């Protein structure tokens, strides 16, 4: 063994040294080194499957490394489980919140370590402690609010308070902005800066490069389980980071020509749709889409976009209003009829809607067209023809591995999405509803999907794009509609607006109000 004294890690809050983690068939972390200085915001970036979350899960004790060492504040520490991590003053805010929806903020924060007066829960003590924490770090939230009544951004603040309440000095945040609006993201960044100012150390897992540039001090880039770069944020740029992440040059913003807008293909008139509990989710929405253009619908998740898409594609009942497609009123037609008329749909949830994961790929390629004479002679499937068709699609869309017998479940997210897109495009639709096409995908796959969507548009197909990612909306859309609580807040062109303006609309401000305010201020 080498001399322990040689290593002086005392200036680092976290050092992970030569971490190796094997999963069956994959080396998730291949001799990874991570150095995080005390009091800095350190980003870990990389594509899906690069090993970021695996690495952090080991720091938080959710899983244990096969080999390697962890030093906390310069002292070698064994972290076998989250209790060890909490004892070492490490806290983790997960991507999916771990809150009890029906309990109040106070109750959630102290859960498991409630202060007490004798046998009684000392809620007043807890409330006071939480107030102090939120004031100290700018984490504004009403301690007595019930979690389910809070917006997502506030729920996230509760998660952070929860971690701080347990005494964390080192905070790990896993993709914290995935669910936030631009304004909420800015608020979160303010909180992170204030935490940093008070000496906390923050590790941020993300794949959004502009966030890395905005808030972090240094960056560790990972690819395929290895560290491919360690840089100071001020010495780098998104292009360089993307290259380190993907291993080649990437177009961060897909280039496109001006749209050649054709005839109107879809017209939505005063559409009203309910969500599953019978409450109104889409509330009098009207708009139209023409051939050869991409209309983007921006909005925070849960503002009626999913219900709107389902109503347009025939998967959900329209309560009132009309869906007119190719001059035919198709309101409440069956999904099958929609497909027959030439409407394609790339659904938001590829596992729930888009694929039968227990089916092999060649069966998934014909979903929705399985009774087409090309694939079925009335009662029997033409399995040889289906396989041949699938072989061609797999090649054309570069699905990996290129095996048509593999089950849908055994493909990576990006390849699953490729299968769905290939299928919908192979049916040669005239109109395509594309919902959250790149959710959870990595940069390489996003680039491919964006290019494909643009090429569909250029072929004269009308595209309705729904996305929670503002960047995606801005880079693809020819027109942008913003949805909030089931209503359209306004329509803008990407070149005539800003993320701030769209962000304001996403939080419930009408475009005309915003624009009139501007003129007043001027």
């Amino acid at each position, binding site marked *: 063994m080498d001399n322990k004294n040689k290593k002086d890690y005392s200036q680092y809050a976290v050092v992970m040294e030569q971490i190796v983690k094997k999963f069956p068939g994959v080396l998730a972390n291949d001799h990874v080194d991570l150095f995080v200085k005390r009091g800095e915001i350190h980003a870990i970036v990389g594509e899906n499957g690069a090993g970021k979350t695996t690495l952090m899960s080991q720091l938080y004790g959710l899983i244990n490394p096969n080999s390697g060492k962890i030093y906390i504040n310069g002292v070698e520490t064994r972290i076998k489980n989250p209790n060890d991590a909490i004892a070492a003053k490490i806290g983790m805010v997960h991507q999916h919140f771990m809150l009890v929806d029906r309990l109040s903020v106070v109750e959630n924060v102290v859960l498991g370590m409630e202060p007490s007066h004798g046998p009684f829960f000392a809620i007043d003590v807890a409330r006071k402690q939480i107030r102090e924490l939120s004031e100290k770090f700018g984490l504004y939230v009403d301690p007595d609010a019930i979690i389910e009544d809070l917006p997502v951004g506030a729920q996230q603040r509760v998660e952070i308070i929860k971690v701080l309440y347990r005494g964390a000095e080192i905070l790990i945040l896993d993709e914290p902005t995935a669910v936030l609006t631009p304004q909420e993201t800015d608020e979160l960044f303010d909180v992170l800066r204030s935490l940093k100012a008070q000496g906390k150390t923050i590790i941020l897992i993300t794949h959004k490069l502009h966030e890395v540039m905005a808030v972090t001090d240094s960056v560790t880039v990972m690819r395929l389980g290895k560290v491919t770069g360690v840089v100071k944020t001020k010495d780098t740029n998104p292009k360089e980071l993307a290259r380190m992440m993907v291993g080649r040059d990437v177009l961060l913003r897909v280039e496109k020509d001006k749209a050649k807008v054709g005839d109107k293909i879809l017209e939505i008139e005063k559409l009203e749709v309910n969500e599953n509990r019978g409450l109104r989710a889409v509330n009098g929405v009207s708009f139209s889409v023409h051939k050869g253009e991409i209309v983007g619908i921006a909005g925070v998740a849960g503002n009626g976009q999913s219900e709107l898409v389902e109503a347009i594609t025939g998967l959900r009942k329209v309560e009132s209003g009309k869906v007119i497609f190719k001059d035919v009123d198709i309101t409440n037609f069956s999904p099958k009829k929609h497909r027959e008329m030439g409407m394609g749909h790339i659904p938001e949830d590829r596992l729930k809607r888009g694929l039968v994961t227990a089916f092999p790929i060649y069966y998934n390629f014909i979903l929705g067209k*399985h009774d087409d004479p090309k694939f079925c002679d009335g009662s029997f499937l033409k399995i040889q023809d289906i396989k041949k068709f699938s072989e061609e699609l797999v090649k054309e869309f570069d699905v990996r591995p290129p095996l048509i017998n593999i089950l849908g479940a055994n493909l990576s997210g990006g390849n699953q999405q490729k299968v769905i897109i290939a299928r919908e495009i192979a049916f040669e639709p005239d109109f395509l509803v594309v919902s959250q096409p790149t959710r959870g995908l990595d940069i390489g796959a996003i680039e491919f999907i964006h290019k494909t969507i643009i090429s569909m548009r250029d072929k004269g197909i009308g595209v309705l794009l729904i996305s929670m990612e503002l960047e995606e909306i801005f880079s693809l859309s020819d027109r942008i509609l913003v949805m909030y609580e089931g209503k359209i807040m306004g329509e803008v062109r990407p070149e005539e607006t800003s993320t701030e303006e769209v962000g304001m609309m996403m939080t419930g401000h009408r475009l005309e109000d915003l624009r009139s305010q501007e003129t007043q201020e001027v």
Partner: protein
Amino acid sequence: MSKLKKFYMNDKIISPLIAIVISFIIAAIVMILIGKNPATAYGALFYGAFGTEGALINNIMKATPLILTGLAVGFGFRAGLFNIGANGQLIIGALLATYVGSQMQTFPFYLSIPLMLVVGMLGGALWGALAGWLKAARGAHEVITTIMLNYIAVFIANYVVNGPFQAPGGVPKSPEIAYSARFPNLVTTGATWLSAGIFVALAAVVVVYIIIEKTKTGYEVKAVGFNPYAAEYGGISISKNVVLAMAISGALAGLAGTMQVMGVYYRYLGSLGGSMGFDGITIALIGQNDPIGIAFAAFLISSIRAGSNQMQIAGVSKNIVIIIQGIIIFLVAANRLVKTLMVWKRKGVEEI
């Protein structure tokens, strides 16, 4: 890896096989603990199932309806439906077939035999489709409705064979069906005979296999079973396929009952249903809902049952077979456990 080796390494085949082996080992341990010799017992079991011509015939006759109820439940599972009502469907199918069969004294066999089969399937299909319709139209869960429909079927049958359709003699049984509506006996040994029913059951295996693997119906039913949301998205009607799958499942169960009428009792008996519908659940589980697997699983169950009497004679309680059956089901149902054991083993090999 060669194709053959791949076939045998398939978890779908290997994990039930492991379950069967483990259950026989555990039952052997139980026998040793109670002071019996497992070798003698298993010898007797085997002899009782396959040792003589009569034993083999008895075994096959027991397997015939089990193959069909196994297919019935298995087909339901493929559509994501838990058909606990195979018993009720079997009873209704058998009852209707018996009635029709008793009215066909003047019919030639080439009319009456197909007619019996069709009516038996229709009766079961109707009873199954009823549960399917309740689910599709009202959202009533098929587990509840099929259990309820089982009771209704049992009481209808009891009423009918104790009243309007009772044979003279005061016993709860129907009149006999016409001779032309009976299966011919292929082999007769003493008091046992082999009817042609086994061929109907094996044909059903092939037909169900083709439906599931080769047809549009099979594609739709499986899509609904695996992922109803994706099926709906693909333009496949969930309601239609739920009703259809329950009807096909019921038809297979009805056919099982009809086999008993045409090949065994030649009439409807009060106890005709037995527990065959529920055995179908066991068999579908062991057979992994695969038609061919189900045929083998049905023979496994019929064999240990047919052999159990011989085992009793050899001095080991026949209830041992219930232990064997129970452990197999447990291990197949908990097949993650078996799979974990397999993964451990593979990992062990890798690490060495």
